[in-house]
């Protein structure tokens, strides 16, 4: 009985087991059916969709950055060039502890404190997923050493990249400008110009000078390449390529040797200088001293160098040629004289007896002449030749400020010349209206008297002085100073001359008046003139005018005594000149800060330039000091100025 029960139980258990096993089998079939359906859905129905996604995953279109155009001087000397070098780049988002990783890296390749500082600054300025250079210009050996250790540095990559270099270093840096890494403001400008696509892959953009102003020409057209990438974004192989178009080469109007002579001639003086070809407005030299090394900016300047440049009392980053607004001092006198002739306020013969000072009717204040005791009997010619202040005080007073303003404006004073690089300041040609607007004050007769000798409210940039001088030189034709001579098409190698604003052939002044002033200016460089020493034995005729302008105001009767003053309060020295006087080929405006006397510090600079430009004579030290463009090995350019 018990056995039978057990048998039945066993039988029942077996039946239950079998049915449940069958059920499991069914469930398994259903489950595999479900999987099959899923495979069908993914691999048959949705296949093309997933195929597209897979292709998008693996194919990446990467930009191919064009070579930036070269910048050359008028004789073909290279001012800005490219070279290819290895950089070691880091994507911070892919590295857990960047500082630590760089410490490790320093065992493999050299990482200087300066590299670190620069990198830290870059990191602050950029987004974490961007690839940033920690080291540039790696040697072949360093590249090899890194390659061996590469597995230790995820997120670090060696890249071959084109670099900008400025083989001339400081020379002409204010005219050439520099490129720097694209910042947020640049991105906005690029977006506004609709150039976002063309700047894909481009890290750098022209910031200043020619580099900034002709960015569009220099950049070129970005190409593209389809590459197969892996999940880490590394390119595995190229699938197709659309070549980029290099940027156009720019030929500048600068004569690099002339520029070098001018910069050297400044010595340790600060100041600005512009030399213009009066026939066409080509800027032959554009000097702002002290200069800076544009190579420092190419890969993001490190904070220390930046602070040094930015906080220096000498303000090396300030382009004095365009942005230095100084009282023109006596260099304004030829223009004043011309104004008086044009407006018939003075005849050439009009003569005064100079007691050494000038007073306004009914006012006791004496406006002193630089020469104690005065110049004796003075007509216009002598007034220019000897720079007689008294003569011009009276002249200005008789003309009145508004006539002066109108006339000076015709020579470009008080407004931007429109030179083709950014940052120019307008200077100031004051008028009654201006003073009312600016200070809500009435114009006083005394204000006009100061303007008569280029002091008071009057301000001009070296560029304006040079431009106005060029107009004097070329017979009164307006010139448009410019730095671009021609654009060389990257593809065809054809030269396209720079497009200039239409020239106004109508002279600004009567030729006979101009001739009179020019004759007087020529005598400035002759015995009896204020620039005779600087131009002794010059085999060409030079028309010039010296000037010096107070940096600080002087009280009545106070005597200017350089020995009792700080150097930065010494007078600025000015000089304008053009030569040869009868057929001018070059006009300059020179401003030497705290140079005191135009004749002794500013004029010799012009002399050296004229000697070279007109006679081909080079100062002995200049020849060997000028770096040859072929030896512009970029490797040293940076270290030199470190």
């Amino acid at each position: 009985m018990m056995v039978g029960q057990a048998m039945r139980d066993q039988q029942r258990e077996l039946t239950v087991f079998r049915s449940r096993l069958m059920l499991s089998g069914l469930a398994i079939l259903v489950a595999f059916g479900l999987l099959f359906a899923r495979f069908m859905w993914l691999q048959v129905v949705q296949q093309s969709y997933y195929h597209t996604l897979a292709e998008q995953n693996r194919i990446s279109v990467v930009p191919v950055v064009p070579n930036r155009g070269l910048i050359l001087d008028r004789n073909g000397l290279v001012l800005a060039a490219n070279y290819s070098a290895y950089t070691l780049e880091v994507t911070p988002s892919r590295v857990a502890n960047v500082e630590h990783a760089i410490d490790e890296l320093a065992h493999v390749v050299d990482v200087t404190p300066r590299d670190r500082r620069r990198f830290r600054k870059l990191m602050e300025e950029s987004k974490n997923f961007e690839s940033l250079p920690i080291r540039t210009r790696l040697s072949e050996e360093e590249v090899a050493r890194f390659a061996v250790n590469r597995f230790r540095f995820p997120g670090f990559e060696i890249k071959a990249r084109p670099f900008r270099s400025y083989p001339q270093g400081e020379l002409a840096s204010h005219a050439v400008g520099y490129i720097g890494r694209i910042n947020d403001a640049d991105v906005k400008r690029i977006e506004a110009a609709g150039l976002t696509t063309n700047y894909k892959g481009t890290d750098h953009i022209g910031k200043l000078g020619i580099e900034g102003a002709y960015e569009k020409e220099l950049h070129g057209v970005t190409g593209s390449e389809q590459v197969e990438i892996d999940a880490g974004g590394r390119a595995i192989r190229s699938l197709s390529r659309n070549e980029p178009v290099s940027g156009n080469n720019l030929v500048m109007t600068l004569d690099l040797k002339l520029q070098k002579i001018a910069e050297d001639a400044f010595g340790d003086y600060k100041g600005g200088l512009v030399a213009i070809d009066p026939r066409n407005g080509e800027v032959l030299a554009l000097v702002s001293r002290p200069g800076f090394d544009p190579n420092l900016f190419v890969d993001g300047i490190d904070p220390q160098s930046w602070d040094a440049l930015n906080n220096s009392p000498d303000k090396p980053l300030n382009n004095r040629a365009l942005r230095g607004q100084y009282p023109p001092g006596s260099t304004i006198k030829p223009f004043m004289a011309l104004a008086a002739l044009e407006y018939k306020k003075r005849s050439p013969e009009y003569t005064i007896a100079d007691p050494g000072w000038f007073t306004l009717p009914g006012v006791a204040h004496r406006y002193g002449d630089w020469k104690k005791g005065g110049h004796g009997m003075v007509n216009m010619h002598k007034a220019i030749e000897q720079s007689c202040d008294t003569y011009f005080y009276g002249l200005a007073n008789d003309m009145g400020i508004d006539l002066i303003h109108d006339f000076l404006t015709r020579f470009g004073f008080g407004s931007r010349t429109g030179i083709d690089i950014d940052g120019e300041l307008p200077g100031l040609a004051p008028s009654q209206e201006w003073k009312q607007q600016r200070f809500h004050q009435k114009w006083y007769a005394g204000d006009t008297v100061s303007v008569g000798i280029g002091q008071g409210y009057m301000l001009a940039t070296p560029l304006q002085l040079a431009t106005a001088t060029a107009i004097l030189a070329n017979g009164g034709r307006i010139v448009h100073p410019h730095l671009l001579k021609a654009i060389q098409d990257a593809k065809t190698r054809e030269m396209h001359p720079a497009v200039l604003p239409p020239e106004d052939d109508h002279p600004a002044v009567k030729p006979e008046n101009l001739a009179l002033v020019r004759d007087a200016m020529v005598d400035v460089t002759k015995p009896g003139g204020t620039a005779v020493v600087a131009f002794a034995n010059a085999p060409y005729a030079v028309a010039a005018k010296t000037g010096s302008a107070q940096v600080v105001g002087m009280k009545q009767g106070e005597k200017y005594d350089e020995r009792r003053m700080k150097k930065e309060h010494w007078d600025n020295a000015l000089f304008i000149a053009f030569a040869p006087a009868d057929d001018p080929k070059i006009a300059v405006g020179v401003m030497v800060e705290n140079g005191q006397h135009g004749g002794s510090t500013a004029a010799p600079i012009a002399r050296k330039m004229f000697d070279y430009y007109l006679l081909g004579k080079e100062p002995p030290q200049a020849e060997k000091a000028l770096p040859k463009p072929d030896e512009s090995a970029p490797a040293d350019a940076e270290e030199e100025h470190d």
Partner: protein
Amino acid sequence: MISRAFELLSRRIDGPLAAALALTISLGLAVVYSASAASMDRTFGQVRNLAIAAIAMWLFAQVHPRVLMQLALPTYIAGLGLLVGVALFGEIRNGARRWLNLGFTTIQPSEVMKIAVPLVLAWYFHRREEGLRLRDFVIAALILVIPVGLIARQPDLGTALLIFASGFFVIFLAGLSWKVLVSLVAAGAAAAPFVWSFLHDYQRQRVLTLLDPSQDPLGAGYHIIQSTIAIGSGGILGKGWLNGTQAQLDFVPERSTDFILAVFGEEFGLVGNIVLMVLYLLIIARGMMITANASTVFARLTAGAITLAFFTYAFVNMGMVTGILPVVGVPLPMVSYGGTALLSILAGFGILMSISTHKQLVAS
């Protein structure tokens, strides 16, 4: 002489099962080679794993089911002890306490339980052959839930679920009444929100990501998105061996282990997937036949549980890689690279073979 040796070696080996396993394993090796970027080192590593697992299978096949039954309880108790040891002294790797350092080697005791739990449950029901009562099922449930709970706490949700499944299969096949079953499911559904609150964040994330992988395309959803792209882009015929772009360009994560099906599906297409499913079904079908013909309760329940557990491994992995099940970290049986899972699976098949080849002796 040679034929005698062969006879001795193959005496306890089930021919059809061994053939199906060999085919699947060969296919798996080819995929491992491709998934490891044609690395011979890794492929040979897998061959070594296979050799060890095959020896284990052969050894288990030699052991009489009766001996296994005798070993079931001691093994289970030892395994439980090790699990407690893990909970107390275990090593933490990747945020989970799963390993126990025994001085000479580190082991993962949960792997032992994959075999020990179904064995001990089968042993229990075998002993209770004469009329099962509800009390027996309660005890069985306890035997099951204690190790599963310990493993889930490590946390190792995938393994816990798989062990629970294999133990549950034993209980189910032993004849747990439908009434209890249905009420358990109902209770489970009711407890789901409660369980949810006990899940670790990463486990919740996995469930949420499963529901909508696009929520977190770079994090948790990345695996599923890339694996479905890989499989889907494979199409009907696949991109060809070693030619899967998703796989070879590193887009599929964990491509030689848990997500190896994505590599396989991309390179061999729908056709490959069907072949793989057919192979799995053949293995399962053979396992069911052995189960159906087993002569004792212990043998039946053990064989059934092993077969169904194998199915579960395959289904859960394929479901997870194709995006219809949560990502729980289960390898694709006999294809994924890795020794431990292979060892426990082939050991299980060794037991199946033992049951298959020893039944005549038992019957007589």
